[in-house]
């Protein structure tokens, strides 16, 4: 009884296992998770869970009974140390488990600050798992001085929750502006204003020289020479695909575990999906870090394990909640050269439409679900509305085209 073994019990691993059963797979199915928690949602960790508004049991992606009812052997606290491809086995702790097919859904790990500049100090946290939030909770209190390192979505969401919870928040971004890698200046401008209005001391073009103190950081020295007192720090400087296991097993790794369009790695019996995997896209390779990709990539790979041979077509989307603002993003804005701003029908609704030439490639919709849903549909259909007419266009007419 070897069957399918899935390494990684996050969103992708769970979605894959559930899809295999929904599609009628009746063989053995083992889901190995490194953490102590059954599969759970990560996005609320930097949002409602950190705020204390969402209880832990509601983070779970399935009820505890689901696994038994669907004959999924969920093993938690199982850190897989090695893959023996010749024997068709994985090893974790004292256990050896045989597989017919192996799927790697190992996710991604947050980048940490180097120890040399204080990254290992006791009050420096990342935000990737339940344990991270639990660890910072005793220090995440009104009046505490929080330093957020990194102006990407995780850093901004953490800053929003912290400001709302009464912490004194300073956010530093070493690049010239926040959201530099992921969004247009228009979107960054909106969120910079929003955070400052909510009392966050947001400083761009300001790197961290080092954190000072021990065992906990007491102060931060910034690259511009200023010093800040800190009670805790949250580091949101991106993630790295968890590809060490694949590397050790000599599978090809290229910005994540390299797969073909069907999710197969360089070993035909081993597949990969979700944050950890890069797949062919537009002549190159693409790796996505999002719930949407974790679910859809995993479900596609699940069907392929059962013989479907369906290539994965990414339809990326993403969202971020900060204060009372909802940002919804669809598409990939890589290579844009123009951004069209369109005011929405409802008050405060605005959307930013990314174009490469005259080709519409992505949208950031701010409190504007109508624009988001329209943009998503246009991207799915490969339709590019005329950028010159867009600001005044009726959304329903655009999708009717």
């Amino acid at each position, binding site marked *: 009884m070897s069957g399918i073994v899935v390494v990684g019990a996050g969103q992708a691993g769970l979605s894959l296992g*559930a899809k295999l*059963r*929904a599609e009628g797979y009746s063989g053995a199915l083992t889901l190995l998770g490194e953490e102590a928690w059954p599969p759970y*949602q990560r*996005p*609320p960790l930097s*949002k409602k869970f950190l705020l204390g508004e969402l209880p832990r049991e*509601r983070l*779970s*992606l*399935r*009820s505890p009974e*689901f696994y038994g009812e*669907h004959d999924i052997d969920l093993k938690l606290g199982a850190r897989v140390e090695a893959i023996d491809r010749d024997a068709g086995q994985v090893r974790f702790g004292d256990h050896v488990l045989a597989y017919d097919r192996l799927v790697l859904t190992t996710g991604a790990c947050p980048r940490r600050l180097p120890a040399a500049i204080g990254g290992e100090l006791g009050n420096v946290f990342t935000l990737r798992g339940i344990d991270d939030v639990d660890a910072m909770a005793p220090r995440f209190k009104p009046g505490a001085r929080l330093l957020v390192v990194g102006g990407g979505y995780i850093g901004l969401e953490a800053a929003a929750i912290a400001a709302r919870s009464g912490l004194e928040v300073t956010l530093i971004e070493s690049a010239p502006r926040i959201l530099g890698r992921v969004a247009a200046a228009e979107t960054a401008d909106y969120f910079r204003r929003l955070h400052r209005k909510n009392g966050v001391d947001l400083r761009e073009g300001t790197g961290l020289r080092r954190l000072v103190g021990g065992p906990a950081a007491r102060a931060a020295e910034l690259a511009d020479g200023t010093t800040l007192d800190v009670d805790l720090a949250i580091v949101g400087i991106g993630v790295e695909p968890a590809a060490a296991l694949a590397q050790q097993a000599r599978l090809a790794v290229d910005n994540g575990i390299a797969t073909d369009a069907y999710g197969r790695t360089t070993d035909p019996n081993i597949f990969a999906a979700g944050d950890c995997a890069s797949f062919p896209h537009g002549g190159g390779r693409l790796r996505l870090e999002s*719930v*949407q990709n974790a*679910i859809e990539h995993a479900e596609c790979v699940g069907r392929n394990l059962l013989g479907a041979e369906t290539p994965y077509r990414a339809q990326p*989307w993403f*969202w971020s*909640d900060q204060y009372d603002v*909802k940002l*919804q993003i669809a598409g990939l804005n890589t290579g844009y050269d123009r951004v069209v701003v369109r005011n929405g029908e*409802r008050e405060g609704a605005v959307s930013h439409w990314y174009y490469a030439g005259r080709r519409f490639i992505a949208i950031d919709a701010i409190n*504007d*679900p*109508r624009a988001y*849903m*329209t943009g*998503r*549909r246009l991207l*799915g259909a490969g339709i590019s509305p005329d950028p010159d007419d867009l600001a005044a266009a009726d*959304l329903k007419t655009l*999708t009717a085209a």
Partner: protein
Amino acid sequence: MVKIIYIEHAGKRHEFDVAAGQSVMEGARDNGVDGIVAECGGCCSCSTCHVYVAEDWFDRLPPIEPMEEDMLDFAPGMEPGRSRLSCQLTVTEELDGLTVQVPAEQA
């Protein structure tokens, strides 16, 4: 516990006891109803938990907020008077016996 009835697009019928305070979406997701994807986890950001509410139930549900209305307005297979986002429906004793159907497609 409140009984909620879910009918998958292919016709498979599930009856689950869902705790009051949870959403209709969470009841579906926790139990693995096929077709309720709920990518955003219930914050009204994705529309992948779209359901058709049985006709005699629609008017007894809490009203549709603007954000949900806008998401629904552009959802595939949207049907006025039947469509809701199940993440926006909080389970209460009054919903005992609520029947929802999963559409052919979510996006």
